């Protein structure tokens, strides 16, 4: 089944510039309903009030990190099945392992390109 490009996507990053970059790349891929949050707690609040088909989150944020957000999402009955891609500069093995154990859907290391973002979205959502 084709991915609905009208789905709501939530991007989470404390660097506003990075939010802007990811938003533009998503728009070029045809996704138009994009919301932004600057840390995990703001993202969680938006998620509890919305219906997101994908979360693309940074890791290193305050006060709530991307990993904490992921754990909150996976332990919430309503949100636990939301596809969640971590996009982060944290590239150590223990980071990838911790994220995978917490239930991340895929992992992108910064700096990344549009091709990688698209490939990971396809692996999580299916072809679009």
């Amino acid at each position: 089944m084709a991915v609905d490009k009208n789905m709501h996507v939530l991007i989470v990053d404390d660097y506003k510039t990075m939010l802007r970059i990811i938003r533009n790349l998503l728009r070029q891929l045809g996704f138009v309903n994009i919301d932004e949050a600057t840390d995990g707690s703001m993202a969680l609040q938006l998620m509890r009030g919305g219906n997101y088909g994908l979360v693309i989150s940074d890791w290193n944020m305050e006060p709530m990190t991307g990993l904490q957000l992921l754990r909150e999402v996976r332990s919430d009955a309503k949100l636990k099945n939301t596809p969640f891609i971590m996009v982060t500069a944290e590239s150590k093995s223990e980071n990838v392992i911790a994220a995978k154990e917490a239930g991340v859907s895929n992992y992108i290391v910064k700096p990344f390109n549009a091709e990688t973002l698209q490939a990971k979205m396809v692996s999580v959502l299916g072809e679009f």
Partner: protein
Amino acid sequence: MSSTVDRDLALHLEALRKQLGDTVKVEDVGDVVRSFLTSLSGDVSAGDLKLYGEVQSLAAYIHNAKVEIAALKPQDIQNQYIASATDELDAIVGATENATNSILDAAEKLELLTSELPSETASRLTEQTTLIYEACNFQDITGQRITKVVKALKHIEERIDALVVAFGPEIQGSELNGVALDGNAPVTDEDLLNGPQLPEKAHDQASIDALFDNI
């Protein structure tokens, strides 16, 4: 006689204990040694003399160390150089952020033109703006790397402060707080916040994928 010296030493130590307690600050060690040496009386053996010589050398060593540390002007390093370096680094982050946003402004305006262009040209223009967006990733990485450096500087600043305090008012400062690193401590979430690794040490996307798929 040596036994006389031993008794005098015991009496003197007891008097010092009453006066200063069981702990003597580093800055007071020289005074204590001096006070002890000037109070000596009675016969002194060759062994006693050797011991006093060693103690005097120790006092001189501590004094010289204090002079050398004072000459380094640790508070200048702390107040001037580190503070200045931190400000400079913050300025770099601000400048790169502004520049990146200007680049993004321009790229977004170029992208708006695609609706007015033939489809092939529009497609080529979109490809180029994508490359611009990708290249702007650098700002995030730069910011995170600089944040790591600022944290390191703040750590050095804390250590200098502790050193200044440890060596007393002569170099304006109290006690060096050594923090032991426990290699067996469990990994916490904070331990995982390492920021970007240097390019030669960082995993690339392919190795991240391989690791991810094998967990």
